[in-house]
């Protein structure tokens, strides 16, 4: 009986959440010079209502192509399995030392793929231990209400009216004082029928990636 009730309850909760999703949180994200900030993750964590239902097991993909990870930023819900196909001409390694998920996949060949299930919320930084410039981020969230900012710096997340903690994170987000990488910006917001909107300035580190271009050899004497 319980086996039947639980999925039914989960389904009804999801349906109710979907029906009540009539308010929108809109944020416009600006960088240090007032420029729009793309690829920021915006998520809403409910403070009053029960925790959102668990996500159905999902799948996502981050490919190795042209000696880069594609896409650079992926947002998934807890429990999602991410595939990492190697669509390059050369072998790639894959690792994360992030607290949210530590793993290492040894070099694997073009055409092969690996997969990892992300079972804890947090930011996971991906790297390749032989191509130092390869980096990508997987942001694992527990809430179904999340979004990412576009090229205009705007992100909109629809959710039922209520009180939320809004979290904003970007790969270059830093603490303005220490200039060190920072955890997500957090703010409590109340989402009414009219929604909620705000412009947020993000302290960001300069967009510096590790150089890829070939280096000259040592002394030629």
């Amino acid at each position, binding site marked *: 009986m319980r086996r039947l009730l639980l999925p039914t309850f989960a389904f009804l909760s999801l349906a109710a959440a979907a029906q009540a999703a009539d308010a929108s949180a809109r944020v416009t994200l600006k960088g240090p010079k007032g420029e729009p900030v793309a690829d920021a993750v915006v998520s809403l964590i409910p403070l009053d209502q029960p925790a959102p239902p668990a996500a159905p097991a999902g799948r996502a993909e981050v490919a190795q192509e042209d000696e880069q990870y594609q896409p650079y930023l992926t947002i998934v819900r807890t429990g999602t399995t991410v595939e990492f196909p190697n669509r390059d001409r050369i*072998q790639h390694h894959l690792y994360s*030392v992030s607290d949210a998920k530590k793993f290492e996949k040894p070099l694997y060949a*073009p055409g092969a793929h690996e997969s990892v299930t992300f079972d804890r919320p947090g930011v996971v930084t991906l790297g390749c231990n032989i191509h130092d410039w390869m980096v990508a981020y997987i942001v694992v969230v527990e809430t179904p209400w999340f979004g990412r900012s576009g090229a205009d710096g705007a992100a909109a997340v629809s959710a039922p009216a209520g009180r939320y903690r809004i979290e904003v994170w970007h790969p270059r987000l830093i603490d303005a004082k220490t200039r060190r990488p920072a955890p997500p910006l957090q703010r409590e917001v109340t989402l009414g029928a009219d929604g909620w909107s705000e412009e947020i300035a993000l302290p960001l580190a300069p967009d510096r990636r590790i150089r890829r271009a070939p280096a000259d050899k040592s002394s030629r004497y």
Partner: protein
Amino acid sequence: MRTAALPLLAAAAFLAPATPASEWPLQLSARAAWAENHSRTSDPNTAKDAAAHEVAASTGVTRQLASGWLASADGVVAREQVPKFDALDAWRFALQGDLRRKFGLGPLAPTLQVGASVQRSKFEEDGRSGTQLQAGVRLGKRLTPSWRAAAGGEWTRYYARHAPFDLHQQRVYVETAWDLTERWQLSAGAARIEGEITANAAGPVYMAALAGGFGPAIQSYYRSIPWHVTGTFGPGWIAYRVDAEADLWWAGISPALGERTSLPLRYERADVVNRVGVRYVSEFWSLALMHRF
């Protein structure tokens, strides 16, 4: 010599069969260089400057042996031309293998690399042609994502057809590179070589040395070393081999023209002093176009 090349060939044979051709990325470079005292001459009045051009192609394959352990094998083909002194035109073919240990994960993890190479050089002037064996160790680390440093040592042995070109050297070096931006990179380094180098002299200068014109110490030493009339830098020019210490330093700036292309401009100076105090100074400027496919 042949025995030393065997492990490299075996490593290449081990790595190659399981590797699809698409895994052998090609790197091409074209370099134009200007050398002041290309002739490595101690007498500034007779030193010969020259331009040199080089094109090179290399490819290789990498395998992970265990966590943190990488093995790689590379092949290099290069053609160098010195239009003013075509006896120095050369083909080079090299096979090199490296074993790299990275102590941890991430760009900032230090790496220790040991490697060996065998290189066959075929000069227009055949006496210079020969086989070089080299072994080296290198410790490198990114101190920040945009600043990396390395130190290493190399042992080199060159077996040439004629004795003045046989060399035995040890080299230690430090080098650093700083990415000012994703496009611009500054680099610098210094090295010290101890061992043998080949120098050249105009016939009359060398004969004066043999006759004692530069003192008994030079006379005695120059009579004990191998030398050969080559004509490389002019009629009657002589190549000879000396024990020496060389201090090198270099600096460069390299714009990235794309994610796979760079255009490094580089200056290098070599200050060599042989066992009896004779000094040879050479300077090099080079501009290269490098592309990794």
